[in-house]
């Protein structure tokens, strides 16, 4: 037994962390434990990858199996990190078709959360780059599923948060790129209305995301920096860059001290940080060439940044609101946050596109994500945000959740009951359970 939590260090459970090395061992563990849940690299914020009593760490299932240099189809085991895929294949001109905001996630985690990237409005979620997935079910049988074969299993596994079984392998399609650089355009938006206008105007951009200042109120409510991006072609690069288009100068990464004192992160420092970030960004607005790491994974340069919130940990709130209620909904959310004065360094606004899988998070509309240090007031605020989201027809991202109530989830998302029913009938429940699935009755 050991202390186990997600990226937010909240909540903390006592669990056994087992690291099987073979399929046979995995079968044995599924059969011999009352319930298990798979764990990838622990980047989900809350308790999605925490199984009490038993959690199955997939780190030994980390082999790349084959690559087709004609089509870009990569077959790999579920414990391979997207970062490793990038290290191996970007120098050869390939990049994952969908990446979340950190490259330190496993293939299994990306599938189970059906992650979305800055190109969701254009290319859809992670499932759209999957050819097939192999899943070990409650009986220890491994089934291959795809949009053509075992379709039901495929549909519920993408976004199923490990609750349909253990993902062993998958085939994913990489996209061709001509450099490791991104052509970035930064557009300041004075308020929420302007930010949404920019997103709607920029539907053709491959990548788009906005950093939003959640502490600004009044006429500046929702002031943002919208960042659009395209993979840079050789013609976009300087002579030096174009000569070696996949070579990125290394800056090295910094590490946050083990536990950063949480008093360093009070309302004033966040406010100052946000204001400074906005004005620096606004001054640098315009077009620039950025390396892929800085564009897609800015936080990864600061290893262990989750510790800046101190021992009590932090929680993320992420919801999506349907397009037609996004404006009033976002306004209400931002007003509540700004009034409470509890914003964070990391508030992100993004336009999502349509999504047609049964249990994935995205829907056509706008998603807002922000972090809070865990305390009584922020937990209260997040409950208020839950209510506002539900009132505007929105739903919540399980990969970020660590504290929602069962009633909140089921009120927001009628699909949850269907998912839970399917799990009961198929025997996936009780074999596969996380602390989160128990909390949320999934």
């Amino acid at each position, binding site marked *: 037994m050991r202390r186990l939590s997600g990226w937010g260090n909240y909540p903390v459970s006592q669990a056994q962390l087992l690291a099987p090395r073979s399929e046979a061992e995995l079968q044995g563990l599924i059969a011999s434990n009352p319930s298990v849940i798979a764990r990838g690299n622990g980047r989900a914020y809350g308790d999605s990858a925490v199984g009490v009593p038993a959690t199955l760490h997939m780190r030994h299932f980390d*082999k*790349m*199996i*084959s690559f087709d240099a004609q089509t870009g189809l990569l077959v790999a085991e579920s414990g391979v990190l997207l970062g490793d895929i990038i290290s*191996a294949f970007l120098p*050869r001109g390939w990049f994952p078709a969908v990446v979340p905001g950190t490259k330190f996630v496993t293939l299994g985690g990306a599938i189970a959360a059906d992650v979305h990237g800055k190109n969701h409005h254009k290319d859809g979620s992670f499932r759209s780059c999957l050819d097939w997935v192999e899943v070990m079910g409650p009986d220890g049988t491994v089934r291959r599923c795809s949009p053509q074969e075992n379709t039901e299993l495929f549909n519920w596994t993408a976004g199923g948060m490990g609750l349909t079984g253990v993902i062993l392998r998958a085939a994913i399609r990489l996209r061709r790129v001509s450099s490791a650089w991104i052509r970035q355009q930064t557009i300041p938006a004075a308020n929420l209305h302007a930010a949404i206008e920019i997103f709607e105007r920029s539907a053709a951009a491959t990548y788009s995301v906005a950093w939003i200042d959640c502490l600004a109120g009044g006429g500046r409510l929702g002031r943002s920096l919208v960042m659009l991006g395209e993979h840079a072609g050789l013609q976009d690069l300087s002579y030096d860059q174009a000569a070696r288009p996949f070579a990125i100068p290394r800056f090295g990464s910094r590490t946050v001290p083990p536990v950063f004192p949480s008093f360093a992160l009070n309302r004033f420092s966040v406010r100052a940080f946000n204001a400074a970030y906005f004005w620096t960004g606004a001054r640098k607005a315009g077009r620039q060439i950025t390396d892929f790491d800085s564009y897609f994974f800015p936080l990864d340069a600061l290893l262990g940044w989750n510790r800046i919130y101190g021992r009590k940990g932090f929680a993320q709130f992420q919801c999506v609101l349907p397009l037609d209620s996004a404006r009033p909904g976002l306004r209400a959310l931002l007003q509540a946050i700004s009034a409470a004065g509890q914003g964070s360094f990391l508030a992100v606004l993004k336009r999502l596109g349509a999504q047609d899988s049964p249990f994935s998070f995205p829907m056509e509309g706008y998603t807002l994500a922000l972090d809070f240090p865990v305390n009584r007031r922020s937990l209260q605020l997040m409950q208020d945000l839950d209510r506002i989201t539900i009132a505007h027809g929105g739903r919540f991202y399980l990969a970020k959740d660590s504290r929602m109530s069962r009633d909140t989830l089921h009120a927001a998302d009628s699909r949850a009951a269907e998912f839970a029913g399917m799990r009961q009938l198929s025997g996936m429940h009780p074999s596969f359970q996380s602390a989160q699935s128990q909390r949320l009755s999934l």
Partner: protein
Amino acid sequence: MTKSPVLILGARSDIGMAVAHAYAAQGHPVQLAARNAGNLEPQKTDLELRHGVPVSLHEFDALALDYHERFAGALPELPGIAVCAVGFMGEQGESEISPAAAARVLRSNFEGPASILSVLASRFEQRGSGTLVGISSVAGDRGRATNYVYGAAKAGFTAFLSGLRNRLARKGVHVVTVLPGFVATQMTEGMDLPDKLTAQPEEVARAITEATAKQKNIVYVRPVWRLIMLIIRSIPEAVFKKMSI
């Protein structure tokens, strides 16, 4: 410039595999030697896909001394660097009552590794270059009740490496002794090791590539182990024999 191959003896070991990845990432071809080498095919493919280097598999048993010459002769190319990760902890309790069990621990950690490194040493000496890396253990720095058979074998191996280094120092061949401290691997799975003192296999691999590049002689992976062992070695025997550590 094409880089010289790196040979990993005991390649299925977690440390050995981490070393293989570290060198492959630098562009070195890799030769994986292990018992039942055939079932390392997935590891071979993974290394090749990730790092774009050629990887070959070689059947190798450290205890089959008679075959060591033939094994070395059959390698597609004499490696520039050879890393021996072969080791076997056994059960101390069993080693105390069964001479056969004790012999297996002694031979797997000392006789076998010493034999294959001797064979390679002569070939490296003849060529006038190369680095031999032996993974020994701090357990060999002082015998303790809980694992002295394993410790004794590692003590022998450490002394052997030091002599080999001395012999080859003026022949262009370098010898590195690695004393990893605790490492989170198959060997220690299920043991309750203190986090701060326990290295990951990747750390050991980094220490090995650095030590090889800088021609270091003896490396402790986490520096704190140098201090711990300094203290443990200096405890008077009269006191030490009554301690349980």
